[in-house]
């Protein structure tokens, strides 16, 4: 098999100084390019914690995480930030758009942050993504004027704008009604196929998990099962 996109080896994570809570008890995991993976498990089992570690938003207590062949353990914070911007996209449960900006600007934001200013082509690229998610007509709307489902779709477009190999999504449909949730999930599957982007999606929704290429189940800080669905 080809080199994994992400390699997680013996990762543990504890919180607290005096009262130490061990949340992850040694996680080993490989994620592959363009794979659409669900991460399920009971509340408090450590799913979000693992996602934050994979997203370089936090550091493991022990073990290592290799992203695109690069060991991230000893990287300085600034390098981790750059790597995060370039190689990872995020979609969170509480659709985190910037309310002071329009839908189009929100999609452009990772490019602006990476390049330091607007450059030719950025606007067009962001607009093309808005078209793809079916929100081209809302491009100039303020982010807070969009519905919850629309905001989440814009967040998906934003996560994809720098064409990262991996998008991490923590309960992307958790805050939406069934219909918009289904819409967002369809969108994730579609863009994953189209851009050949790997997704790791935390979800509590059985029906959603059932439609992923692979399902990881987490219990008490360990990966209890790893089930791959045969390609259809």
């Amino acid at each position: 098999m080809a080199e994994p996109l992400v390699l997680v080896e013996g990762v543990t994570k504890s919180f607290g100084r005096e009262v130490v809570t061990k949340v992850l008890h040694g996680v080993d995991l490989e994620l592959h390019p363009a794979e659409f993976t669900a991460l399920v498990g009971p509340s408090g089992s450590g799913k979000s914690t693992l996602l934050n570690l994979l997203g370089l938003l936090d550091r493991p207590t022990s073990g290592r995480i290799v992203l695109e062949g690069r060991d991230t353990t000893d990287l300085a914070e600034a390098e981790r930030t750059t790597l995060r911007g370039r190689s990872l996209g995020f979609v969170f449960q509480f659709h985190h758009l910037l309310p002071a900006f329009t839908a189009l600007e929100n999609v452009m934001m990772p490019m602006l942050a990476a390049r330091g200013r607007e450059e030719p082509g950025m606007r067009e690229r962001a607009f093309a993504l808005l078209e793809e998610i079916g929100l081209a007509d809302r491009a100039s709307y303020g982010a807070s004027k969009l519905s919850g489902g629309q905001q989440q779709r814009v967040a998906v477009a934003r996560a994809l704008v720098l064409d990262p190999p991996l998008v991490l999504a923590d309960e992307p449909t958790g805050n939406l009604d069934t219909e918009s949730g289904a819409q967002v999930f369809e969108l994730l599957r579609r863009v994953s196929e189209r851009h050949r982007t790997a997704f790791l999606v935390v979800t509590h929704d059985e029906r959603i998990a059932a439609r992923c290429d692979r399902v990881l189940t987490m219990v008490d800080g360990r990966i209890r099962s790893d089930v791959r669905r045969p390609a259809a």
Partner: protein
Amino acid sequence: MPFEVLVALRFLREGRIQTLLILSGIGVGVGVIVFLSALISGLQASLIERTLGTQAHVVVRAPEDVVRPATAPTAERVVASRLEQPAQRLRSIVGWPQTLGLLRSLPGIRAASPTAEGPAVALRGLANRSIALRGVEPASYRGIIDMPPRMTDGEFRVDAAHAVLGVELAKDLGLRKGDKLRIETPRGRSDVFVVAGLFDVGNKDLNERWVFVSLRSAQTLLDLSGGISSIELKVDELFAADRIAADIAGRTGLEAESWMERNRQLLVGLRSQSASSGMIQLFVVIAVALGIASVLVVSVVQKSREIGILKAMGTRTAQVVRVFLVQGAVLGLAGSAFGILLGSALALFFAALATNPDGSPTFPVALTPGLFLGAAAVATVTGLVAAVAPAERAASLDPADVIRHG
């Protein structure tokens, strides 16, 4: 537009009421600074103008005679001596035309004029008054004290036959333009002049004592035989006068006295006035800085979610810091624009409030581009400095925390 500026401006725009309030606060602060500076420098300029309107900036004279005891003390001999100052006699500058040429060639000197000055008595019939006789070259003297505009009657004409005197002296002696007056000096010389005109220099004492004649007439009357008693100077930069005076004294061996030495009290007054207004302005700046800092600290807390998102999608810590520094600077700059308008309006209103009989304002104000630029610079830098602590706070926010708590 740089990413940081874009985000900073949007954050400010989003904080509407907060931004407006702090802008007003900065505006009022800067307004106070502008108003106070304009008023203080206006008052000082008018005070200096009033004082120096009738004074040279630097007066160069021959050095005083030094008196030495006739018998010097030695190792074996103690000498008791009392030194008598010699009676004041007019000292003449040796080789003055060369000195005048030299002074005129020095940088920073705007005008130089030779003067033969000494005590005399003006007589008309039985009345007499002691006067200060001033022999001048009318052409070069204009550069020292511009007399023609101060003439209330006749003209500033001094030659072999004409003299010019002040309105008070003319009243005392009952003289009018065209009348004759006799001038006598302690050296026993005297001459008769026709009054060519009367002046009012805005100083009663000088209007009573000054009598202008030609340089040559004064030289003859004062027995200076072609010499002069002083060279009067105007300099380009008022507060460089003492430095220039010291330089001249060093170069020529003559005595040079600046207006600053002659008007110590005025200078002390001006300086303490500047110092106290400086103190007030410093406190205003501190208040403005605290205001900006507190608004930005609140904004960091309110925007922690946005900051977390920005960081999660690859915004570097240094960029986050700059977003807040830019906010501080923009607040300072924009607030100062408002403050400059406010301060100027206040100053002009104040100036229009009360006027002297001659129509000039009682409280003159000096609104200059330099003052505006200075105020804007101070406010911008203050905003920048005030933003440092909030920016550090924003930079230290942990995106994982922010995302976890929605």
